[in-house]
Structures are given as structure tokens and as C-alpha cells.
């Protein structure tokens, strides 16, 4: 490249296998071997971007990136020079010895154990993946990493429905799912399998870790540097203000290499760090990639992620977590006089997300009465705005569990707008 031009290359390779069981029987075995390369260039204050899967022609990739320059997309930021990074343990070589046969065995074991303890249809899946990525840029960054992940997912279906109680297990290499995982599923399912009609008392609402993403999605959108730049975030100018209950702390932790997916840099080569979004209920930070950091005259915060080799980086929180509370799931249930457990959410992607609004169908909705899970309720919806709902958190579970987009505890909410067809 000519002097004064800037460039960044991002390359990924991924191999993986997936096993799925439905109704406790082997349904599918799928494998994949996929790769891709993307190129960003900055020239004369403009940005170009191109990608391919098969790098047969470097010239074609460069040509596509140069052609894209002509569109006039602004590119006034610099690619970072990143060196001397903290070393993270993201790859466990023992994953290479994990065979599909072993994963089939584990799925069968879990199905057998659960079928002895529950009456529901059992769907499980296991998958392994090994990935490698490399980021190089014209500032001198040359970072590469290898990662491994093993994931096990269980769904217990309620009779004559596809609503299911779910839980996921995520680790860096194969481990049998622990007894606690199985006990939660079997016991909670058995207590809630009967359909009930709720009483008329005011209902508390209990988000399981698997459904906390509904709330976090709205926070992520509002704290996103893109939303701040577009002036559509309800959180603009609110750093330092209390927006949630003081028991709630939300942060992004890409450096936690005890779980899969840890990252020392984002997809632009900016170093990652432990990043508080909300601390004891107080809004602490917005998050940026290189592009929006420059737009907002802010420091890049290491949150430029691509999602796919075919996409440009955008501000993303991919390692969200919350500070665990002090109460166990069982103790929280025991404390509830009358409540609904949100074990599954439908329609989280609809509604006025930037504004913080949500209106979701709950499927399944488990019913708590006098401190016990007594059944499940049909045709339930809950609506609200997270800046109201999250002020009413009255309990935070003392354990984190994998959910969509991060690791979360269960959250008990004092009251919410619940609509039930009687």
C-alpha cells in the first residue's frame, strides 16, 4: 500500500461438529469447516471494505475494497498498534480428541438420566468448535489466537406444547454436565408440569438467566456508541445517574478465560478490558468501536466486533455478565408469595428497543404460589420499560448461568404489567 494508506486484514477459520437429539433419539449430526477473510482500507479520509470466503484472488479482494472507497464512506480513524497483551487461555487442546461418538454418548446419558426423573419430551444437543483468528493492520498490530468451545443444551418440553424449560452448559473442552445442572432441570420441570390457573394476587416476576437477555438487549442498545451518536438513546447525558436498582451491576468481561470466548482484543485490534456498564445501579459508560469513538471524540473501548467476516465492526457487548447476588434460586422462589417465572420469552426482538420498551409472550410461564413452584400458566404476556422494571429488582441469584449474549443470574422483579388470558 502506498505511504499514508491504512489497512486491516481479519481472517478466521472454524471447524465444528454438532449432535442433536429430539425426543431422546439421535436426530442429526452436522459438521462444518469454514473460513473467511475481510479487508478494510483507509485512504484520503475514506473507508473501503471487502470480504471473501475463499481467498483465491488477493487482487479481487483488494479491488473490491478499493471500489468500495469510491462510495465515500468516512474513514478518519486510525487502526491501533497493539502489543504486549495479556495472554489468555482460550484453547484447550483436549477438544481435538473429542469425537462425535463421545458427544452422542453424553447426549444419551443425559437423556437416560432425565427420562428417569421427568415425564417430558427431552431434546438435547452437544457441539464442539475450534476457531482461529488473526488481525493485522498497517499500524503494526499482528494478533492471532486459537479458541475452543464445548456447548451442551437441554430442553424439557411441556406436554402437548413446544414450550420448554432450558439450560445451557458452556466450557472450553468436554466435560460431562454436572449434577446441579440436571437437578435444576428435573426438579423445576416436575414441579411445573401441571397447567394451573393463577390466583388474583399481584404477581412478582422472576426472569431466569435464560431470559435476562430481553432486558440486557435494551441496555446494550441504549449504551451503544452508535445510539449515542444518532441521539436516540434515552441514556445520553446520564452517566453517573442511577438507572437500575443498586443491587444490579452489569459489566462486559472479555478477559474472563475461565469460560469460552475470552478475547484480549476486539475485532479491530483494540485491547479489551473489564468494562463496567452499570455499577450498583449507576450508569458508568457507553461503549465504542473505532469509528464511533472517533465520531464522539471518545476513546475506543475495545468493543468493535464483526459478528461475521462479512460484516464491518460495530459497537458490541459480547461478554456481558452481572455481579451475582446473595440468594440461591431456591431461596428466591421460597420468598415469593405469588409470581411468574419467565422461563422462555417470545418476541424480544419486537417493540421499541431503543426506548427500553419490551412486550413479550412468556412461554413457558411457571407459577409460584406460597413459596413453591406449583405449575405453569398459559397465554401470559409481560410488558414494561427496563428503566422502570430494573429499578424494582428485589433479588439477584447468587450464581451465573450461560444465557444469550452472556452469563447472568436470575432476577426477581417486584411488579410488572402481566396480562393473562383467564
Amino acid at each position, binding site marked *: 500500500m502506498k505511504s499514508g494508506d491504512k489497512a486491516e486484514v481479519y481472517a478466521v477459520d472454524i471447524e465444528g461438529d454438532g449432535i442433536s437429539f429430539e425426543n431422546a433419539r439421535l436426530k442429526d449430526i*452436522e459438521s462444518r469447516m469454514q473460513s473467511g477473510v475481510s479487508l478494510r482500507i483507509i485512504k484520503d479520509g475514506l473507508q473501503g471494505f471487502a470480504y471473501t470466503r475463499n481467498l483465491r484472488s488477493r487482487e479481487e479482494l483488494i479491488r473490491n475494497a478499493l471500489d468500495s472507497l469510491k462510495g*465515500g464512506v468516512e474513514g478518519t480513524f486510525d487502526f491501533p498498534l497493539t502489543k504486549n497483551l495479556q495472554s489468555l487461555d482460550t484453547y484447550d487442546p483436549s477438544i481435538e480428541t473429542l469425537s462425535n461418538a463421545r458427544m452422542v454418548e453424553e447426549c444419551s446419558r443425559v437423556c437416560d438420566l432425565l427420562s428417569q426423573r421427568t415425564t417430558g419430551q427431552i431434546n438435547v444437543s452437544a457441539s464442539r468448535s475450534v476457531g482461529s483468528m488473526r488481525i493485522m493492520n498497517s499500524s503494526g498490530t499482528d494478533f492471532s489466537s486459537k479458541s475452543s468451545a464445548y456447548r451442551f443444551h437441554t430442553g424439557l418440553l411441556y406436554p402437548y406444547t413446544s414450550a420448554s424449560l432450558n439450560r445451557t452448559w458452556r466450557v472450553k473442552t468436554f466435560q460431562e454436565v454436572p449434577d446441579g445442572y440436571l437437578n435444576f432441570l428435573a426438579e423445576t420441570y416436575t414441579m411445573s408440569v401441571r397447567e394451573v390457573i393463577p390466583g388474583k394476587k399481584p404477581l412478582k416476576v422472576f426472569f431466569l438467566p435464560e431470559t435476562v437477555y430481553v432486558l440486557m438487549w435494551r441496555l446494550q442498545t441504549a449504551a451503544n456508541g452508535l445510539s449515542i451518536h444518532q441521539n436516540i438513546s434515552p441514556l445520553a447525558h446520564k452517566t453517573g445517574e442511577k438507572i437500575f436498582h443498586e443491587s444490579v451491576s452489569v459489566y462486559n468481561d472479555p478477559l474472563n478465560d475461565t469460560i469460552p470466548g475470552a478475547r484480549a482484543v476486539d475485532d479491530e485490534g483494540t485491547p479489551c478490558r473489564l468494562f463496567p456498564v452499570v455499577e450498583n445501579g449507576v450508569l458508568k459508560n457507553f461503549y465504542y468501536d473505532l469509528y464511533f469513538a472517533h465520531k464522539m471524540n471518545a476513546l475506543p473501548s475495545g468493543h468493535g466486533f464483526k459478528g461475521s467476516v462479512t460484516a464491518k465492526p460495530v459497537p458490541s457487548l459480547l461478554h456481558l455478565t452481572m455481579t451475582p447476588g446473595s440468594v440461591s434460586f431456591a431461596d428466591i422462589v421460597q420468598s415469593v408469595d405469588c409470581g411468574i417465572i419467565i422461563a422462555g420469552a417470545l418476541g424480544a426482538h419486537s417493540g421499541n428497543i431503543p426506548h427500553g420498551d419490551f412486550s413479550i409472550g412468556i412461554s413457558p410461564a411457571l407459577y409460584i404460589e406460597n413459596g413453591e413452584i406449583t405449575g405453569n400458566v398459559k397465554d401470559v404476556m409481560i410488558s414494561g420499560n427496563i428503566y422502570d422494571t430494573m429499578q424494582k429488582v428485589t433479588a439477584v441469584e447468587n450464581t451465573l448461568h450461560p444465557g444469550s449474549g452472556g452469563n447472568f443470574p436470575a432476577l426477581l422483579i417486584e411488579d410488572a*404489567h402481566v396480562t393473562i388470558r383467564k
Partner: protein
Amino acid sequence: MFEILRKILSQVSAHYADIRYEIRRDARIVFQGNELFHIGSNITDGYVVRVIKSGGFSSVAFTRHDDAEKAVHTAEENAGLMALHVQTPVVFAPAEVVKDTFLPLLHEDPRTVPIDEKLELMRQYNTFALRHDKIATTNIQYSEVVREKYFVNTEGTEIREDLITTSINGLITSKDGTLTQNVRVALGGSDGFASLRGQEDELGKRTAIAIDLLKAAPVAGGIYNVVLNQDLAGVFTHEAFGHFSEADLIEDSPSMREKMQIGARLGSDSVSIVDDPEIPGQLGFYRYDDEGVTAKRVVLMDHGILTGRLHSRRTAAAFGENLSGHCVAEDYRYAPMVRMGNIFIEPGGNSFGKLIETLGNGLYILDAKGGQTSGENFTFGAQYGYRVKDGTIREMIRDINISGNLYHTLKNITAAGDDLVLSKTGGCGKGQLNIRSCHGAPHLLVRDVVVGGK
């Protein structure tokens, strides 16, 4: 390319194998507010091989041609492993051998339109929305996806088919003080670039709705009788019933198969539902699915009675039912699965005015804003609505989400309008994103719908 694919399949030692190779050409232009965020064209490609061996079945997706031998070996190994564990061997329903090249008829091939011209059109539309002082920002994208597909199987089928999809979609966001509202924009189709021109009126309507929503009151949660407009009724058809008609979703669920028996009464007499990818010029049109099976019109429900299902070759054999040609993939990254092509409720005999009059008191709800299903439970959002009182449309309402149970709701559809409309864009996310998933309906009158709200 057929020769290359035949050569890969010649390495397979199995009862059946197929391979699909695709070249995907994308063009995208993205505006965020006044700023051009992205513009570019790119080409990607890849393969998916599938094998049935000894009664087991597996697929492998791979990028590089050099990995073909390893992919074939892995697929055979996986199929062999599956064969050890399945109680019933996997069998494909017989399909005719096809040798064909099918290229769609287009009104202005987008590949012949210079990107500068596309950029200028997008800039005009974007500026059109942003000129209002209550519009805070836009997030609008032009997308063009050309899939050049090659399919070969060991039965002798060889098909080349192109799928070309263009769309303009995104959000227009209005703002008043701290309140923001947004409205989706969705234009496009599979019949060429011409359908994207001259859409200023549509952009104007969407912008006006976004501004009006700032003054609308949030809906009060409760149980209502409602009239759904065509877009929302189409999404309801897709979410509430369509996924249930995908055989792979109920294949291994004894309780669901019991409920979804052909001949069962599931809906009212007012409800007849069809999936028809054969209708030319609509978003969901295709000739052959990704198993090389010819796409067919399927009557799924006839006046409330379940009459059909959507199948892959595997599920058609498992159910003992006819092939329908509904097994498709998003692109080369995925094995195909059963998907809706173009699902819609057939029109009835009622005018829109008659439906509102019959409704009397309730809600008139319009335009889908995302939906999701979990078996028989569904939830979907509406862009906006109106309160209806004494058969007259009154004030606008917002923040509307509807939830329900398929069986209850299908039986609670009391009347269908005479004004069927099919969607222009799609986005079904059943594991993979199907941008050509078309849906449609006339206006529908539905009793006792659960509406979430304050």
C-alpha cells in the same frame, strides 16, 4: 461446475449423496442518519455435502474445494455413527430426476444497475425521510443477494438455479423530547430492481406514521377483539401456523403429531391457508428447492381442516406424505431445512369496512414488527394501531404486542377480508435467515386476542 461436483460425489461410498455449491454475490448500501456507513459488493462461495449411509444421515458445510475429500469422509463417518443409534433408518422419499437450468425472469436485473445509481436512489429516499424535524435518524439498507446455485445428487439430478433478491429495509426513528418511536421500512422482492424505484409515497407514509406515533397513547394491556391488517395477519399466519406446518419441527414430537393429524379441525370455517412458491413475481418464488425437488403449491388448511404439510425428502418419507419441495437453505453455509416459501391465508368475501363495522369495539392493528413462535405459542409486535369504537376507527395507539395460542386463535378468526396482500421482504430466523420467506393475508377479524401493554 457440474463436473467438479460429480467428481466430489464420486468419492462417496454411500446409499445416497448430494452436493450443493453456491456463489453468493452481495451488494449493500447502508445509511445511518445522514451518513453513508457502508457501500460495497462482494463474492463468497462454499459447498454443502449430504450423505445417507446405512440408514444414517449427515451433512458437512465447507468452504475450500481442497477440503472436499475430508468433508466427504466426515459426512460418511457421521452417517455411520448415526446409523448405529437411530431406531428407524433415514430414508428419502423418491423424487424425480431433474436436469435443468432455471434463471428467473426479472424486471430490471439489479446486476445491470450501476452501484452509483443505487447509491443515489438510496440517498434520495434517506433524505426524503430525514427532512422532517421530528425524524431523529434513519437506519436504512439496500441489499442485493444473488445466489448462483449448483446441485448434483447420486440419483442423476443436476440443477442450476439463480435466486436474486433485492430489498430496501430499515428503521425511521422519530423523537420528541426523550420519547423515541420507530417504524420499519420494507420494500423489495425477487423480481428485479424495478420494484424499488418510485417508492417516495411509501417512504412518505412510513415517515408520517413515525411522527404520528409520538402523539399516540400506549395500548392498555388486555383481551380484545381485533382486526389485523394484511401484513400483521400474514406474520400471524407465518408464526402461529406456518412453523407448525413444517414437518421437521413436529417430526419427533409425538404429542404435536397427534394434534396435527391431517383431517383435524384446527381453525374456523373462515380460514384456508396455502403455501405456494410457484406464484411468479412474489418474494418467495423458486423453481427447485435445495434437494432438487420441484416446488409445489400445498393447501395446508381448507376451511379450518388441516390438509397438508411442508416437507423435505426425509420428512415426506417419515410421514408417508407427498413431497412438496420446501427444503431450502439460507446459503452455502448451511444444510437445507424445511421452510415456508410463500404462506398466506386465502381471501374471504368481506370488505375492510364490513370487518371494522362487525368489530364494533376493539383494536385495528397494523404492520408486523417482529414475531416469534414456540410451537403453538406465538408473540408478535405491531408497528401501530387504532382504537375502534362503535365501528369507527378512532385514535392511534402504540407499543402493541400480541400473544396467543395457535389453536385458540385459528378458531377465533371469525371473518376474512377480500384484500389479500403478499409481503415484499422476509426474514424468517429458524436457525438460518430466510430472506425470501414470503407471507400474506387479507384483513382478518379475530376474537379474544391477548394484547400486552400497560
